């Protein structure tokens, strides 16, 4: 049997196993090792299992994943989201759609210290949704804003998805984090504009809240010193700001986790139960992500012996679509996959195949990381299987899926426009990393 035939059979079996709910990492590992064994031999294939598994879990660089997950869990469980939402609300809550704008701003602030889209969406479903409903905001709008705001978690540093992309493609994780800043801020700004436009286009659809006094605003700003300090310390350390120690990404995660823990404990926000819950949450998610990482590395050997990345590169570049045509094709594939699987699994499964194509086409790897994470994040909110939508539904029981998806539609349009802008102007993502 030719290597091409083995590769095709491998992919068919992989997708069949995944559709039969075999954990993504285990399916990749099984197919990868079996395919490698078929082509190279059983002995070498078995050797790769133990060696790759142990090498992956004892790689210090990969420590960035559990550390940022732990920081995000401490931040989430210490209630910093409420302070951010309250502060944003005192400044913009009185405007038409102001609570929606406050949600986006607070989601951005929270994303900058939690690093997770799903955590951001889940947290603000509990914090912002009841408040918006209290002021008679429509269900669809309230849920849509939270779903969209949640996606900021993967763009603004520290982003767990960008860290994994960086590790797989051997790019500087610090540069990737910094590259996400301008696109993340652009996303937040465009969501705010979208809400403003909805408010103007449909008068009466979005209510206004009460205006806060100057004293209330000052008090609210004083409340957000903790998340602000954490963000400046972690990202400042990564970026090498003056008067701050310089960290590697793993160190930034560890210091961020310890900082979030200390801030939570010293301010009386993290009790014994919250600490234990945070440790468990970080452990569970880290174990799930590492299983996929191990599987992907084992699958990588299979890809290498079948020369799949090279063949996919030759095929795509031979289509005559031009580099932007191929890029569009890749992004459409990600949007389609977004209907099937989780963002992290999608990145780990596909990047080893797609990345050589992107490099061959001459695109900047850091810029592509930002673009692809944005595309994958779009999958978190677009129908029929947006993960953020499911998360909101699990927290807010009285809203239907169709209502949430209806509320998300304007933000999907905004996301597509933002992607076009970033493809047209790569400097938006690359300017800050170039200053590092």
């Amino acid at each position: 049997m030719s290597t091409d035939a083995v590769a095709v059979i491998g992919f068919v079996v992989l997708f069949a196993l995944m559709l039969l709910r075999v954990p993504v990492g285990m399916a990749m590992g099984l197919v990868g090792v079996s395919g490698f064994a078929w082509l190279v031999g059983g002995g070498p294939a078995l050797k790769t299992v133990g060696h790759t598994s142990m090498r992956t879990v004892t790689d210090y660089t990969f420590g960035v994943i559990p550390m940022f997950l732990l920081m995000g869990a401490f931040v989430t469980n210490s209630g910093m989201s409420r302070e951010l939402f309250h502060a944003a609300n005192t400044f913009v809550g009185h405007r038409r759609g102001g609570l929606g704008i406050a949600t986006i701003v607070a989601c951005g602030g929270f994303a900058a210290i939690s690093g997770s889209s799903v955590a951001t969406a889940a947290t603000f479903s509990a914090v912002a949704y009841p408040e918006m409903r209290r002021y008679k905001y429509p269900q669809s709008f309230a849920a849509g804003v939270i779903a969209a705001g949640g996606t900021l978690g993967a763009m603004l540093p520290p982003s767990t998805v960008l860290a994994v992309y960086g590790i797989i493609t051997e790019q500087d994780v610090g540069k990737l984090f910094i590259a996400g800043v301008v696109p993340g801020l652009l996303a937040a700004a465009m969501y705010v504009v979208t809400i403003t436009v909805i408010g103007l286009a449909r008068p009466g659809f979005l209510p206004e809240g009460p205006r806060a006094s100057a004293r209330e605003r000052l008090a609210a700003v004083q409340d957000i010193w903790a998340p602000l300090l954490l963000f400046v310390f972690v990202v400042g350390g990564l970026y090498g700001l003056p008067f701050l120690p310089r960290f590697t990404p793993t160190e930034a995660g560890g210091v961020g986790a310890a900082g979030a823990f200390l801030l939570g404990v010293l301010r009386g926000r993290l009790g014994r139960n919250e600490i234990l819950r945070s440790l468990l949450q970080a452990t569970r998610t880290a174990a799930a992500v590492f299983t996929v990482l191990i599987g992907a590395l084992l699958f990588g050997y299979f890809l290498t012996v079948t020369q799949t990345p090279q063949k996919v590169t030759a095929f795509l570049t031979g289509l005559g679509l031009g580099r932007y045509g191929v890029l569009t094709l890749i992004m459409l594939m990600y949007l389609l996959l977004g209907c099937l699987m989780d963002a992290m699994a999608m990145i780990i499964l596909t990047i080893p195949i797609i990345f050589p194509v992107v490099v061959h086409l001459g695109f900047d790897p850091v810029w592509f990381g930002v673009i692809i994470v944005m595309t994958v994040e779009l999958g978190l909110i677009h129908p029929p299987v947006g993960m953020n939508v499911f998360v909101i539904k699990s927290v807010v029981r009285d809203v239907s899926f169709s209502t949430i998806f209806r509320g998300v539609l304007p933000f999907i349009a905004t996301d597509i426009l933002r992607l076009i802008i970033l493809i047209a102007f790569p400097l938006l993502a690359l300017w800050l990393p170039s200053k590092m």
Partner: protein
Amino acid sequence: MDRCIDTIEWVAAFFVGIVAANIFVAVLLRNLFAVALPDAFDFGRLLLGILIFWGIAATSYRGGHITVDLVWANVGPRWQRNIDVFATLVLLFVVSVQTYTLFDKVRGTYHDNVLTFDLRLPTWPFFAVAWAGDVSAVLLIAIRTWRLIFQPEKLIDRTAGVE
């Protein structure tokens, strides 16, 4: 039994905290006192290995791995159970093979007398503790399979929320 599973999960959770503390103390000492914590790097990565394998054990039992639920979510309870049994059997097979091959890695590290960089401590005990996590994963997945088939009411299926 449930207490045993909880203990396994707590072992992993404890090590997450230890890894973070190790990094924090190392960074603090380096930047404030220009002192390097001996073997901070090696301890960090070796403890990471332990936390991940013990975490995988608990995650496998809880059904918290990243999965594609498209088919599962659109079939009846009977087929859902069949799919779950099949997926868990595959999981059991893969983790068993992994555990078998990992033992070779632990044995190799012992025979090669691989040491940490600063304190020259043998690394094989760390590898052995990590391997023990994988052994417990096999046991827990076997229990999960048994319960899925014969005592489904005893299983609480939880999907990990991963970004």
